[in-house]
């Protein structure tokens, strides 16, 4: 008959005390050893105290956990976005998310036109400064433009993606391909002349194309780069500048171009821009442009107000020196007149 293990297994401590087998010696070892005693009152009190302290800490734990989790998520998210931005992935991702699947022209490129409006150096007792046209530097040499370098690293970062191999995507339509080709000529190859031809060809072929407006904006950029300011202004005059992400920027450019011959309408552009709280770069240009135009029109009070605002906001701005000199000359003129 097969016996169960329970029948077979006897606790060693119950073996005969006088046995000589190894199991008997092990049993003697067990029998001769000490057994756990009662924990002391001090030990129990310590355990209880620590448990209570832990419960108090534990009540704060969920809040701490959520806070730590939120901080971790923010850190990881922020680091990821910054890393993506530094690697230039954002430039690729964001256009890919747009409905057109075509990269929009880079908004900063027409900043080359910021030199379009220049004011002549003021003389102490001379007439009010007059805006004078300045050449528009080429894209290839951003440092040569204007008096203030416009963050070449930012520009190169924004356009860097154009130098990378293109991702494999579904074949775009002929229209999109044509515009894409033209924009590449402009942005990547820096061949404004070829780009202008390609854009004209595109606009001829697709006069009502879905990307007509983008093409016309790019054409303005090309004209500005080619220093064909009058044609650029003509193009801008017929371009609707509302409801587009480049509206403000192009309105500043139009104002600067208009200022050469028509300060009244240029002032309207600058004024409209200033009501929209534009970014600092555009605000600086618009404020200076309006001030200069008002000065040219003889509106000394308005000009002085704009230029003071300009100096308050951009004490080291591109035109700060001129603005200070102009205000000083007006002050002297007022003093001598009074």
């Amino acid at each position: 008959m097969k016996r169960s293990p329970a029948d077979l297994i006897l606790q060693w401590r119950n073996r005969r005390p006088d046995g000589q087998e190894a199991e008997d010696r092990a049993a003697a070892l067990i029998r001769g050893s000490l057994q756990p005693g009662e924990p002391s009152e001090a030990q129990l009190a310590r355990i209880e105290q620590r448990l209570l302290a832990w419960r108090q800490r534990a009540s704060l734990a969920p809040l701490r956990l959520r806070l730590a989790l939120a901080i971790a998520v923010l850190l990881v998210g922020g680091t990821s976005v910054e890393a993506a931005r530094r690697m230039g992935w954002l430039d690729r991702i964001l256009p890919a998310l747009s409905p057109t699947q075509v990269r929009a022209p880079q908004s900063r490129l027409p900043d080359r036109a910021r030199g379009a409006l220049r004011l002549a150096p003021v003389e102490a007792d001379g007439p009010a400064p007059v805006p004078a046209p300045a050449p528009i530097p080429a894209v290839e040499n951003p440092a040569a433009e204007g008096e203030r370098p416009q963050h070449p690293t930012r520009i190169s970062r924004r356009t860097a993606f154009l130098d990378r191999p293109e991702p494999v995507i579904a074949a775009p339509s002929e229209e999109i391909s044509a515009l894409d080709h033209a924009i590449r000529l402009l942005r990547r190859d820096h061949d404004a002349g070829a780009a202008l031809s390609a854009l004209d060809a595109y606009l001829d072929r697709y006069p009502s194309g879905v990307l007509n407006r983008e093409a016309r904006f790019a054409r303005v950029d090309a004209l500005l780069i080619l220093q064909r300011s009058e044609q650029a202004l003509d193009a801008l005059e017929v371009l609707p500048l509302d409801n587009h992400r480049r509206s403000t920027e192009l309105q500043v450019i139009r104002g600067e171009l208009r200022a050469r011959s028509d300060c009244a309408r240029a002032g309207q552009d600058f004024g409209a821009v200033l009501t929209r709280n534009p970014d600092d770069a555009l605000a600086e240009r618009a404020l200076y442009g309006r001030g200069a135009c008002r000065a040219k029109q003889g509106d000394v009070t308005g000009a002085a107000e704009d230029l003071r605002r300009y100096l308050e906001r951009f004490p080291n701005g591109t035109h700060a020196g001129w603005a200070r000199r102009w205000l000083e000359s007006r002050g002297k003129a007022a003093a001598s007149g009074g």
Partner: protein
Amino acid sequence: MGSGHREDAVPKLNAAPHDVSPSETMDASASSRQPSFESIYRAHVKAVARWAMRLLGPSHDFEDVVQDVFLVVRRRLPEFRGEAEITTWLYEITVRVVRESRKRARWWSWITGHGQSPSRGRSQASFVPMPEMPADPQALLEAREQTRVLYQVLDGLGEAYRTTFILFELEGLSGEQIAAITGTQLSTVWVRLSRARRKFLQRMRVWETRRTS
């Protein structure tokens, strides 16, 4: 080890070796009412402390383990449905916590090359002579040495074997009780006990050889 117990393998633990508080019977098995944490703590803290001392040995800090056991009890109390005897449930938790504590101590020892990890309330377990032992200092010294050797030999066993050996040979629990506590089959308990005994004897012989030489 799962938290759930097989109902057919959950015997009531004998109160005798553990000297559990009389309020042990009050709780889950007595009624469907959920026992409060405080009542469990008051009734069982001494028993849990003794189990922890037994499982850890005389040279380990047991206060941390007791604290951790009751933290687990507090967290898992809502899951306790009274399907098992509360002492079985507590024993099961204690065994697991001791196992984790010993694992941590081994890691600490491996990393630092010495001793246990520093604990907040280092407190040595108090081991006392059995009632039938002579009370003279010489016998106490010998018993203390035997206890040290016993746990030294036990420390060479794998964790599962060590636990099974201690519960059966030192605590005097039955195979069924050990199966309930460790969440294993009864047959597994016997296999582990058999291997633990073999290993124990091997290590004991090595110790005897060293002592005589």
